[in-house]
Each structure stands twice: as structure tokens, then as C-alpha cells.
């Protein structure tokens, strides 16, 4: 029999029953869309329009529409690509790694985080595909038989490894997310009134009836997928980091990149989860499921990964000096004091300094502060990639070719446009899919709800006054 210590904070509050959970989560799927949701969707669709227009310009007139030049041949596009892929890390981390670490608080955020992962990876994929110039030939990156033409996939290139890493990650995340949705889709199907809802959720739930056999298979599949996903959390950003680190460009070629990119990805992923969940919990009134305890736990992950990233920044700077390699030293001096100093210091402020505020318990548990800091982290992580990519390229070995990069309106349009794409997908998800994993929350209800909490108090430690009236720990 599992035992839960009475000093643990409850993860489901408000004395919910199993039926309440079904009601609270399904309500949003079943009710008519409200005005706020429709307004948000309209804004997102507008930006999706901006995206489509920018894509049209890029494809019709070519990559010349972007701000790239001969010296800075990679800038805005790859920055956005890495930024989005990084954001797409939290979902799998929550569903696989936190599962392995038995973190029960993952139950009410994993569904939305996984959805966010999938949408973020879709947005990320836009950039390398568009940068090809002729995306209809995108399949050339695959190692197809040579009868298709002159196709030589370069297996020495980390860009090709990226193709495999990200497509694998996307497929596994998608399957994992969908499998988790099946039992909840069945719940909604069983409750559905209208014929369309009945048919659509009926098809989505793949004939799930919740028999013992179904659950047994379900658990086996989940376990296998969790096992497969775990190395994927590490591998994707490791390989993204190798896009840079395998080269011999000062500021790019540094061995700490793989784990440091992974930490940064989790950092930015959690920031985005917080940004989205704080809004979702408010609009959908899910305060009893996404509690302050959840927010605080995520903030702790932010402070951990933010500090790892901070240590990595300082390590890079220190070793650049220590190495005695002139070019390496210059690359870092140029980052901090060169023409892009503002990007470097934005990165430092947002990524290293602001998350340290979470050492204060009151800030960790303040929704407003958390929301603001999560936005700071999102911005900071964008600047991190911009700093790494652009400052290392814009002053290369040949001073006569030094140049600056400035984005065109199309560059900005595509970036802002992917946010439109992202939020369109997320809003559709939030409306038509259950945003919280109903049956997983039900599995922790007995052990981790406020009700279970108080009974433990009286049954286990009634005569221990310190346990009954203990001050909240931090």
C-alpha cells in the first residue's frame, strides 16, 4: 500500500470527486465557444494570415526576401527554429522524465504540455523547410534511392541528423499524446449529445470501451512510449546543438553545447507551459487542478534549468579566456561588448538574473510574477539563440567581410506568423480536446487530494501537534 506523507501539499483541491473531474474538464469541450475564446482565435488567425502572406513572399520571390547576407547566412530563421524546438521540450520531459521520477504533479499539466510540444515542433519545422527555398523538394533530405535523381544525403552533416531526430521526436510525441487522449475521448463520446460530436469523438476514441484488456494494453504501450521518449528528450536538442558545435566557428565549437542546449530547452519549454497554463487555468476555471503547488514545482524546474544555463554561460566565457585561443576569446568579448551587446545583455538579464527571483517562495507562488518571469524567459531564450548564431557569424575570420544582420519585414512576418499558427492550434486544442488528462488526475485523487490529506492527518498523526499545525515548508 502506498503511503503519502501528510506534509505533502495536495495536488487536487476543492474536495473534488471523480464525477466532478469529468464534469469540470468535459464542460469546456461540450459547451458553446465563448466570446473570449473566439476573440483570441480571431487574433491568432490574423497572425496566421501574416504567416501565410510572408511564406508566399518567401516562396514567390525567394530567400532574398529575408535579411540574410553573405557573412550572416544563418540568422533569424535558425534562431526561430531552435527557439521553437526548445519550447517543444517540456511536453516530453513532463510525460517521460517526470513519469520516471514519479512526480505526481505532472498529471494535470502533461496533456497541454504535450500538445504544446507538438505545435511548437510544427512551427519549428517551418523554418528549415522554408529556408530550402523550394520546400516541395523537401523530401530530398531523406536518404531515398538514387533513382529519384541526384540525391546524396550527407550523413556527415548534423543537419541531416536533425531531420531524423526531429521527425522521430515529432512522431513519438504525437503518438504518445494521442494514446493518452483515447480514454478521455471515450468519456466525451459517451457524454456527447449531438450526432456530430458522437461520431467524431467516437472515431477519435478508436472504439475504447475501458475493458481490462484495453487498460492492460494501454499501460504497456504507455510504458514503451515513455521508454522511447526518454532518450528523445536528450537527443533532439543535443543534435540541434551539434548543428553549431561540430563546426569550427569560434563561439559555436564548444563541447558543453549538448547538455547545455538540453537544459536551455527544458528551461524555455517550462516557461512556455507556464505562460499558457496560467492563462488556461484562469479562463477555464481550473484552479483546483492546476494549483499553486503545480506552479511552484514548475518554477523550481525553471530555477534549476536556468541556473544550469547560467553556469554554462559562465563556463563558456571562462574557458574561452582560459583556452588562450585568440579567436575564441574575441568571439566572447564581441558578444558582450560588440555591436550586439544589447542582445547579449538581454539574454543574461532574462535567463540568468530574472529566474533567480524564484528563490523567494512568495514569488514562486505568485501568479502575476510567474507569468511575467515566464515571458522574460521566453524572450531571453530567443536572444540566447540569436546571440549564439548571429554574433558568432557576423564577424568572421576576415574583417573585410564583417557585416551586420537586420531582419526584413518578411523575417518578422514569418516569426510572428508562427506564433499565429501556434496559438491557432493551441486554441483549437483547448476548445475541442480535454485540456487536462481526466483519468490520470483521477488516479492521483485518492492519494493527493485535499480530502485525502486531512484524513491522513487525523488517522496517522493526530497526537503529534507539530505535524498537525506545522508551518508551511518551502
Amino acid at each position, binding site marked *: *500500500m*502506498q*503511503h*503519502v*506523507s501528510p*506534509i*505533502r501539499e495536495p495536488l487536487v483541491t476543492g474536495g473534488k470527486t471523480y464525477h466532478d473531474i469529468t464534469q469540470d474538464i468535459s464542460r469546456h469541450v461540450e459547451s458553446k465557444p465563448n466570446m473570449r475564446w473566439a476573440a483570441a482565435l480571431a487574433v491568432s488567425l490574423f497572425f496566421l494570415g501574416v504567416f501565410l502572406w510572408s511564406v508566399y513572399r518567401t516562396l514567390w520571390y525567394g530567400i532574398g526576401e529575408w535579411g540574410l547576407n553573405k557573412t550572416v547566412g544563418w540568422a533569424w530563421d535558425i534562431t526561430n527554429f531552435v527557439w521553437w524546438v526548445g519550447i517543444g521540450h517540456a511536453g516530453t520531459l513532463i510525460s517521460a522524465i517526470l513519469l*520516471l*521520477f514519479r512526480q505526481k504533479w505532472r498529471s494535470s499539466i502533461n496533456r497541454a504540455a504535450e500538445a504544446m510540444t507538438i505545435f511548437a515542433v510544427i512551427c519549428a519545422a517551418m523554418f528549415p523547410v522554408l529556408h530550402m527555398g523550394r520546400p516541395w523538394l523537401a523530401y530530398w533530405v531523406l536518404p531515398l534511392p538514387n533513382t529519384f535523381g541526384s540525391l546524396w544525403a550527407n550523413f556527415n552533416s548534423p543537419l541531416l541528423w536533425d531531420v531524423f531526430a526531429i521527425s522521430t521526436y515529432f512522431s513519438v510525441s504525437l503518438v504518445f499524446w494521442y494514446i493518452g487522449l483515447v480514454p478521455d475521448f471515450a468519456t466525451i463520446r459517451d457524454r456527447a449529445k449531438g450526432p456530430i460530436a458522437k461520431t467524431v469523438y467516437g472515431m477519435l476514441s478508436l472504439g475504447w470501451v475501458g475493458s481490462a484488456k484495453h487498460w492492460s494494453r494501454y499501460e504497456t504501450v504507455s510504458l514503451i512510449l515513455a521508454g522511447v521518449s526518454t532518450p528523445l528528450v*536528450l537527443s533532439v536538442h*543535443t543534435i540541434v546543438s*551539434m548543428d553549431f*558545435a*561540430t*563546426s*569550427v566557428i569560434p563561439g559555436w*565549437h*564548444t*563541447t*558543453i*553545447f*549538448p*547538455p547545455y542546449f538540453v537544459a536551455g530547452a527544458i528551461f524555455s519549454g517550462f516557461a512556455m507551459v507556464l505562460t499558457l497554463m496560467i492563462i488556461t487555468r484562469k479562463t477555464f476555471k481550473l484552479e483546483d487542478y492546476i494549483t499553486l503547488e503545480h506552479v511552484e514545482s514548475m518554477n*523550481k524546474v525553471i530555477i534549476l534549468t536556468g*541556473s*544550469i544555463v547560467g*553556469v*554554462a554561460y559562465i*563556463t*563558456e566565457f571562462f*574557458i574561452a579566456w*582560459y*583556452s*588562450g*585561443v585568440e579567436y575564441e576569446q574575441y568571439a566572447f568579448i564581441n558578444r558582450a561588448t560588440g555591436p550586439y551587446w544589447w542582445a547579449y545583455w538581454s539574454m543574461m538579464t532574462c535567463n540568468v538574473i530574472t529566474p533567480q527571483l524564484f*528563490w523567494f517562495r512568495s514569488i514562486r507562488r505568485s501568479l502575476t510574477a510567474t507569468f511575467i518571469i515566464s515571458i522574460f524567459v521566453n524572450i531571453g531564450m530567443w536572444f540566447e539563440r540569436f546571440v549564439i548564431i548571429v554574433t558568432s557569424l557576423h564577424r568572421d575570420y576576415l574583417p573585410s567581410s564583417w557585416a551586420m544582420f537586420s531582419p526584413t519585414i518578411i523575417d518578422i512576418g514569418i516569426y510572428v506568423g508562427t506564433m499565429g499558427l501556434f496559438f491557432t492550434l493551441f486554441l483549437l486544442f483547448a476548445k475541442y480536446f480535454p485540456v487536462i488528462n481526466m483519468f490520470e488526475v483521477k488516479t492521483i485523487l485518492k492519494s493527493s487530494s485535499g480530502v485525502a490529506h486531512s484524513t491522513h492527518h487525523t488517522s*496517522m498523526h493526530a497526537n503529534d501537534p*507539530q*505535524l498537525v499545525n*506545522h*508551518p508551511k*515548508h*518551502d
Partner: protein
Amino acid sequence: MIAEERLIIPKKTSNRFLMMIGLGLVLLVLGIILMMTAGPAHHDAHGAAATGHHAVTWYERLMSNLWLNSVYFTGIAVVGLFFTTVQYVAYAGWSVLIKRVLEALAYFLPVGGVIMILVFLLPIIFTGHNPLFHWTDHSLYEVDNANYDPIIAGKAGFLNLPFYTIRMVAYFALWIFFAWWLRKQSVAEDLNGGLSYYDKSIRISAMFLVVFGVTSSLSAWDWVLSIDTHWFSTMFGWYVFASWFISGLAATTLTVILLKQAGYMKMVNANHLHDLGKFVFAFSIFWTYIWFSQFMLIWYANMPEEVGYFTERLGGYGGHYTWIFFTNLVVNFAFPFLVLMTRDAKRQMIMLKIVCIVILFGHWLDFYLMIMPGTLRGESGFGLIELGTALTFLGLFLVRFTKGLTSASLVPVNHPFLEESIHHHV
């Protein structure tokens, strides 16, 4: 109320630890005598003259071994502290029953600190420089000197005697202080109960993790990276940490099993072992990940200023280290990976015991490969000096470790998550 559980080390066992130290010292002295008498013949065979270096003396070999074992055992000790603090800040429940083992590992820290500071400073006091650290040679920094090395001279702001010594003292002072402070709460909790010690431990742990986040990398740069003075790698701090961490996990798991088989730790069951096994499995892979990332990036870029480190170890010195290079991977990755893959293996004591012993040996070898090429070049070996030094350190470590294990109850009777750990079920 859960009863205390006191470990009693029989006289015979503690004598055995002392004998280990004694035997180690005898072998060490014997090895030194053998090397002194057979020294000249040895160095012809390896063509030391060809590389422009003098032949390695018994003194350098002794120093290298002292350093290797100090770094290795100190690492295991500090990981005991590190992992305890991780349990606190993560609100871990399952690990409460094994936490006294973790705490006891840190008892070696003062001994490791004294030995390391002496091994670093004594040669400098008596001979002016330390044979392990090329950068302690004054002539490298004198512009007019034939030995002048602009690269090393450029590192003088970091690699200089006063700063280095201050750092080394600071690492040990901080680590020992935090270990003592945390242990004090833990023992007081046994006596008095209540949540105040637990709450305080969480705060101490968070502080230590910040300290360790910085000092783990710094100490790795100081103690290991600076041996190969020209070389640099941003990953190196985390690489050393990964190696320490998995060694510490293996030591913990092995101790828990040995205690259990000796009739202690009755409440520890297959579920706890399973979790420890998962940690050993996962962090063997983590070490490999860090190893691979560092190696692959340097190998791929193939830049002269950094690739030398691996060419020395892969095929350098006539292939002297090649077998260790590959054994390192087999023993520390392939073996634990394949053996601990299944659920059953992680729940069986015999499997875990074999894997932990192999890993403990394997990571000693990993540190051997980090340290020896830089200090002894192609003239390292596995002889009486290696065996003697390792045995002496193991004996010293066990004396301190068992001191830590016996000085408090093996079960932290008033820990607020004790019940969770007792009823732990994976």
C-alpha cells in the same frame, strides 16, 4: 514508533580495514623500492629520450597515484552529500531509508582534503614545483626563459599558487561545512523529532546545491583539467561530475546491499533496490552521453589545439592507453547498460552487486585515463604502487565511512517521509 537500527562493526572487520591500509602501505613501499632499483632499465624500453622528456621516477608515479585516488574517493564522498541534498530539495520519499548511507560517505571529506592539500603543497614547499602540474613551473612564465610558454602564461590569472591553494581550501571548507551542518540536523531530528530540522535541511540543501553547482566544475578544472595544462574543454567540469556521480551511486547501492546482507536495513526491499538500480542504469548512460558529446565534438572538428588530448589517449605513446580508452566504454557503458536493462536485474542483489563493483573499478580507471597521460605520459602502469595506493585509500575510506555509518541510527526515525519510504512500492 519505528525503532532505531544501530550498525555494529565487529572488531574483526575494523581490523581488516586497518590491515588493508597496512598492506597497501607495504605494497606501496615495495613498489617504490622495486622501481628505484629497476628504474633505468625501464625507461629505455619506452624511448623517453625520443619525446624529449626525462624518464618517469618513482616519485612522480607515487604522486600521480596519490592524486588519482584522492580525486576519486573525494568525489564519491562529495556525491554522498550532493545526493542527500538532492533528496531534500526534491521532497523525495523513497530514499529516506538509505539516506544515512549517503550522509556517511561524506565522512571521508576531511581526510581527502588533508591528503590533497598536502600532495599539492609539500612538493612545492620542498622542490619549488609540483610534478603533477606543469603550470607550477616558474620558468614557463619568464619571458626571457627558454621554457617560456605564452599559452600557459596567459592562464596565470587563474593558475597561480596562491589562488589555486585558496580555491582548494575553499572547496573542502565549504563541502565539509555543509556536510557537517546537514548531518547535525539529521541527527538532531532523530533525537527530538518535529519538522523544524527537516525544513532547515531543505534550506541548507538548496544552498549547498548552489555552492556545488559552481565548485564541482571549478574543482574539476583545478584538479584534473589543469594537469593537461594546454588543453581545454567546456564540458570537462560536467564530465568529471558525471564520473563522480555514478561512482557515488554505485558505492551507495553496494553499501545498501552489503548492509542488508549483513542483517541490517531490514525495511529496505526490492523496490528500493529497484530505484537505486534505475539510478545506476540511468547515470551510466548519462556519463556516456557526456563522454560521447565531448569526444565526438572534438574528434569531429579535429582542431589541433584540442584534439591532442584524445590522440594521446587513443593511439599516443605507442598505443599505451588504447585498451583503457575502449575498456572504459565497455565497462562503464555497455556492461551496466546491458546487465541492468531488465526490471528483474535491478531488483536482484547479486546483479546490482556485480554491476556496482564493475562500475566502481571502471570509474577509477576513467580517472586513471584522465590523469596519467598528463603526468606519466607513456610510462604509467599497473603495478605494486597502483595497487598499494588504491588499497590504502580504500582502507582509509572504509574507516571513515563506517565511522559515519555507526555514529547514527541507520534508520532516520523521525524523518517526515519515513513512512513513505517504508511502504515504498514501485
